[in-house]
């Protein structure tokens, strides 16, 4: 299962990277969202899968699955949400100010 999950993570990373490399601003933001999905799965997977029960002391006496990656991912989900929200508004502002959502047209070289 772990190997399969890591291959899935690899595919997600490839897709995310390809989107990040595109010129459209929305595709780039979706790309970052996919990258964070991939990373969450990766962290969970390298912590070991199905090695124990739900990490709730009231639920069973153990053994429990590794709780530390879960805590890390919980933090990461929230942060990546914040970043996505910020990027979306940034994209909106960029479009309103510059009238373009294409990175090639947004190149800022006029001051040089």
């Amino acid at each position, binding site marked *: 299962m772990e190997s*399969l999950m890591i291959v899935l993570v690899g*595919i997600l990373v490839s897709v995310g990277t390809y989107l990040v490399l*595109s010129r459209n601003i*929305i595709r780039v933001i979706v790309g970052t969202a996919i990258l964070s999905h991939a990373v969450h799965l990766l962290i969970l997977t390298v912590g070991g899968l199905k090695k124990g029960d739900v990490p709730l*002391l009231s639920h069973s006496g153990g053994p429990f699955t590794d709780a530390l990656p879960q805590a890390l991912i919980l*933090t990461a989900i*929230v942060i990546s949400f914040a970043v996505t929200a910020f990027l979306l508004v*940034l994209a909106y502002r960029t479009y309103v100010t510059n009238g373009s959502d294409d990175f090639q047209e947004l190149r800022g070289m006029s001051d040089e």
Partner: protein
Amino acid sequence: MTIDLAIILAPFFMAACIAIFYRKIKRNWVGWIVLFIPIILFLTLTTYIPRVANGHTFSNTYEWIPSLNINFTTYLDGLSLMFSLLITGVGSLVILYSIFYLSQKEALHHFYCYLLLFMGAMLGVVLSDHLMVLYVFWELTSVSSFLLIAFWHHRKASRAGARKSMTITVSGGVSMLVGFLMLYVMSGTFSIREIIANISMISGQSLFIPALFLVLLGAFTKSAQFPFHIWLPDAMEAPTPVSAYLHSATMVKAGIYLVARFTPIFGGEMIWFWTVTGVGLITLFWGSFNAIRQVDLKAILAFSTVSQLGLIMSLLGLGSVAVHLGYSDKTVLYTQASFAALFHLMNHSTFKGALFMMVGIVDHELGTRDIRRLGGLMSFMPFTFTIALIGSFSMAGLPPFNGFLSKEMFFAAVLKITELDIFSLQSVGVIIPIVAWVASIFTFVYCLIIVGKTFFGKLKPDLLEKQPHEAPVGMLIPPFILISLVVLIFFFPNILGKYILQPAMGSIYPTFPSVKELTPSIYAWHGFNPELYMTMGVVVVGVILYHLLPRWKRIYLLIPQRFTLNAMYESTISFSENFSRLVTRRYMNGDLTHYFIYIYVFFVAVVAGYFLFTEGITFNPAIDAKIEGFELILVFIMVVAAISILFAKSRITTVILNGVLGYSVAFFFVIFRAPDLALTQLVVESVTTALFLICFKFLPDLKPEPSTRGVKISNGVISILVGATVTIVGLAVMNYEKFDTISSYFEDSYNLAGGKNIVNTILGDFRAFDTMLEVVVLFIAGLGVYTLIKLKAKKEGTDIENK
């Protein structure tokens, strides 16, 4: 803490006070408060004079970085004392002068802060015995000089001059550092005194000559010796008090100090003798020759400083012969060259300081320093004229001023050196007095120019912006103190000789048993001898050349403008600037996608490269958990959704497919026993999708990617490589079992944190700070979102951005 350390630290302390409290201090008081420091230091240092004159030295060691053998060792001997007196003495006068020179509207706190920084750094240079500490202070003088030259940083010339001086002096400083490290490798110590004590051990080693050259490079760049002198004229963009202080009296003499300090180490070498003397003489000649063509009074003084520094340098070179010959009753003939160097150094600080202040007064009262617009000021500015006259005549080497004495000693030294038959002096030595004499003629001519073109001739009122008038008393006092010293030293030179110069010379020849016999007595009148005839010749030829100046000035046109050192420096700088701009533009082209590509390619190259190189790729599916059927279906769904996103034509499809991915991840969280994650993921995914949809109201629909096929293929290759790299890293990590898991610690969460949900206790207790900062990140992101939506740039704001 003892007094010597306090002397170095006091200016730094005061600089910090000024920087912190300047708002509390009345503007017109700042200068007066600062003035206390150099005066107190000067008075403190004078109490050392009798003891140092009796041969005492003072040394203290403070541990700084003992593990690296770097200690703060202060060392006060004759040479250090002489320089410290110069730094604090001239410093006091310059600060007094600047109180009247600078307008109250200037950034006075910056000015005095930098000036004190410089003073402390300079005292650090002359008072430290440890090479590394000396180097740190040495570079600090360059930095403070940079700040002071660029004091009027709104002027382009100021910035250019500051950068030039920084570039040249700091590159010299770095080569000096390498020289110091070589000395350390050879001798095993950073202490100058210990190196001198072990000189016989290191002088034969192969690094000795390279170290000699590198140290000299540091000294030559700092002291503006040919061909590095080009920074000094440009440094004249600094306010005049700074020019008087740093670029004439003290900082440029740090190179002289270094050469004097290292004479006991390197002085016995023929190569040292010829390099120091030769470079000094060339600088002496070239500086005086170029001073004549200048039209800016300050530029004349700059080239004259270059030339005088060359004179002092060459005298130190001549004096190094004494180290080679060793101690004997005849050595006095050659030690007097070093003596003359120190003597002239003192004299130069007095008359050149006064001359700079004189130019400052002219500039301040008339608004110009251009000699083509000046003239006939004698009757309007009689005191300033007196300063100019005495200063210039002293510089020209006329009696009854101190410059006469040291100039005569210089002539004596260059004549004496031709009698030696070491270092192949027999054959080429005769050039030395000839160059010295010719350069002295040019010196005489430009001294006449300074006085004649400014104060004699006709007044040109139509070329002046202001009505000429005498300067305020406060600006006249400091230069008058200096010119009274010029006269006093002429009449009582041996007091200076006995108390200051003799112990200082003792530091240049520390191995000699006694310096008393080596100290020449200074006489104003020593009969009709070759030196006096040389001076007379200088005066006669100088006056003739001055009067014929318009006829032979064309000689300066013989050197094409393109081939001057300055032009070559400028073209090198502009070439390297243009070249690096060209190269940088090639890759920093403003296209975000390209920057991403650099990052990804670098990531793949380093990470995948590392794993391939170390053969760290391991793959062992045997330890995996079992795969259930529904898990396979979920994986399949995610792969299909992910790949379809690449081909999605509309943005709605894209976002829904992204939602599919997100909810599938939530399902995986459920399968992998992570209920909290699943809940959070579901909520966040819903909100994110909603956010995307809201944003689409304001953004245009997706267009097909306009990139060419080639770009798409290369992007695809990069993406696949990145994905593959992540996969192999993940697989390698899965099979990496070198550490025990730390998670079992958290399973005691009920006892440790009072909670039964382990994930919650980790977030809320074990790593609570982390969670708090996460909230802060959320808060900042929220602020950012709010700002971007609500606030609009003001009209002026956009204008400034576009400028």
